[in-house]
């Protein structure tokens, strides 16, 4: 990363139009100290390093991250969005609702610290607060697993149990968490039902391929039947080079098929796998990676209940000039 020699005296304010994905509706104050030079165009100045997203909606926001199809990146999304939220200063409880095949703890690198799960809480082997695993990197992030890999959970009980968990988190002493993210297992089985039961909103993760899309549409239908109206999608593993070569559906094609607002577009990134191996979510990487930045942006939109207004569609040949300052 090169050091920019852009002078401080020229903060380069950029006025943004509504077709910008990075534009936020102007009725919400964006910067803490935005100078109101032009009343109709919010001006982004260097002061935005103090920016913090505005939490919209009632807390705790109970968000289920689901997909229908397996392996499309639900757990990756939960881990990265969750830690991004924690870094933005919100308290987050991530619940791994996968009864049989839990792996959120692995992605977070917390696998050695999960001693108790919801099943043990239900049995009276421990209290709920003992089952919550607090991340040492970001102490406002906590992980709760629903069960250990080999323990059996009575069916039809998981949903109730999660509702109790949410209730208990609501009136805990340190105050309710801002976000409760529920990592939903694949399929539309009991695990899915368990995961969606306490949720008020959903993030649908899909990849731009037809199998994943069909499942996503089905799952969206089920969520809507269940009364979850606030559904936004994250399109994962997008390859702009393949889209350009017409080998992959574009994000806008996906949107046309599903008719859902976009929370984020995550590019295919080998760093995702590397971060899984490390147990160190991508968003904590320094310098940030493409997918990490995309997750952070998605988290930001989630906080503000915002959606994308434009998507990055194709790579253009890199021009010399202004942008060459930022060569990565």
């Amino acid at each position, binding site marked *: 990363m090169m050091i920019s020699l852009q002078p401080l005296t020229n903060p380069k304010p950029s006025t943004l139009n509504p*077709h910008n994905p990075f534009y936020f509706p102007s009725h919400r104050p964006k910067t803490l100290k935005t100078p109101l030079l032009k009343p109709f165009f919010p001006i982004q100045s260097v002061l935005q390093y103090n920016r913090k997203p505005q939490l919209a909606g009632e807390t705790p926001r109970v968000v289920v991250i689901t997909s229908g199809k397996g392996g499309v990146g639900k757990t990756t999304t939960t881990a990265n969005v969750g830690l991004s939220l924690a870094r933005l200063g919100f308290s987050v409880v991530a619940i791994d609702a996968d009864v049989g095949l839990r792996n959120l703890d692995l992605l977070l690198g917390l696998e050695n610290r999960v001693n108790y799960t919801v099943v043990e809480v239900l049995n009276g082997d421990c209290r709920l607060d003992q089952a919550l695993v607090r991340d040492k990197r970001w102490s406002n992030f906590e992980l709760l697993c629903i069960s250990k890999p080999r323990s059996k959970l009575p069916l039809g009980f998981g949903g109730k149990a999660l509702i109790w968990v949410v209730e208990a988190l609501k009136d805990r002493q340190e105050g309710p968490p801002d976000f409760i993210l529920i990592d939903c297992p694949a399929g539309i089985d009991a695990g899915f039902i368990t995961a969606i039961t306490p949720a008020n909103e959903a993030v649908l993760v899909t990849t731009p391929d037809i199998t994943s899309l069909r499942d996503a549409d089905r799952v969206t239908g089920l969520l809507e039947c269940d009364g979850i109206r606030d559904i936004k999608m994250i399109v994962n593993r997008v390859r702009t080079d393949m889209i350009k070569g017409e080998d992959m559906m574009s994000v806008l094609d996906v949107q046309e098929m599903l008719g859902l607002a976009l929370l984020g577009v995550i590019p295919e990134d080998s760093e995702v796998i590397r971060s899984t191996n490390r147990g160190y979510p991508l968003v904590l990487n320094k310098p940030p*990676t493409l997918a990490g930045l995309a997750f952070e942006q998605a988290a930001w939109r989630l906080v503000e209940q915002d959606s994308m207004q434009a998507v990055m569609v194709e790579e253009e040949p890199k021009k010399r000039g202004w942008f060459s300052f930022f060569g990565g």
Partner: protein
Amino acid sequence: MASLWTLQLHAASLPRCYSSTHLEFRAEVGGFCSGFRKWNRNKFVDGKFVLRALSDPWNVDEEHKRIDDQNEVIIKANVARGVKSQNPLIKLQHTVASLPPVIFLKKKHFSISFAAGLCAVAMLLIVVLRSYLARKSRNSRPGSVADLVRRGQLRSDRRGISTPLKYEDPFNNPMVKVGKSNSTVEMCGKLYRLAPVTLTKEQQAIHQKRRSHAYQWKRPKVFLKEGDSVPSDVDPDTVRWIPANHPFATTASDIDEDLAQHNVYQKHGVPFRIQAEHEALQRKLESLQNEQKLGKLVIDHGAAKDFERPFKSHLKSEDQVEQSSSNSQMSPKHTNSDSAQNSYLNRPASDEMQKP
């Protein structure tokens, strides 16, 4: 927060062309800082480093009352408060800011004052360099607390060792730049074109309607095994059938729901099962005592201590208070706890036992 340090130097100690001028290095130094900031994202919230040389008609020399052009160097270290950073530049600024003001007065003799000025500058440099190196070596020393933080043994936010990158803006930073026309965006060194999202509310509603026709679904409320009969009061649509050999699900609910709910809501004290186990073991111990067999029973005190939850004598009263939800009753708990205790009587003595 903002500290001001005025350093007056002899006119001759600075190049002649600077005298009687008002010079601002702001752009250069500021530009450097902003570059630094870009490189070191957000650690540096609002740093400003202004070096300014200006002429000042201030003379304290007794022998020569003549007002001479005297250069004043103001180093303003304007560092935002509360920025914990390992940025060496900020450390340097802090060091500079913490030094007392030094005023070098103009002396008549050219060479003496020149030497003095030179000495002062050299000394200053040495001090700054030394403290910088000291800090650097302290941070890089292996086996420090920073290593504990790195290994996840200590919380970083409390120690203030690593920088909590709160309120970082993912939309405008050195890695993400929106083009001037807003039709392009630069991310991680790659330039992308932006295509506006065209989905309208109406289209969204049409999709919703389509789905509501395509998928009619009721969330299953009852789970039954093959062979079970559907209860009469249950909507057949909400029944989910699961295979008997399901890998991780069971329909047989061997836990009492109210009790389970109470367990989830419990905030303090000893969890129910641990307490039940403890009581059962205690009873067993008592019965053994009555039979004069106590001598053969060995209790491992070390193992008992390892067990984190302390057993208190006032467990029961504490337990009663924990009822946070009004709709769940305590009564099923007690009926259930008796049976649970009985079942534990048959279990072998565990290490969790502790002598009352």
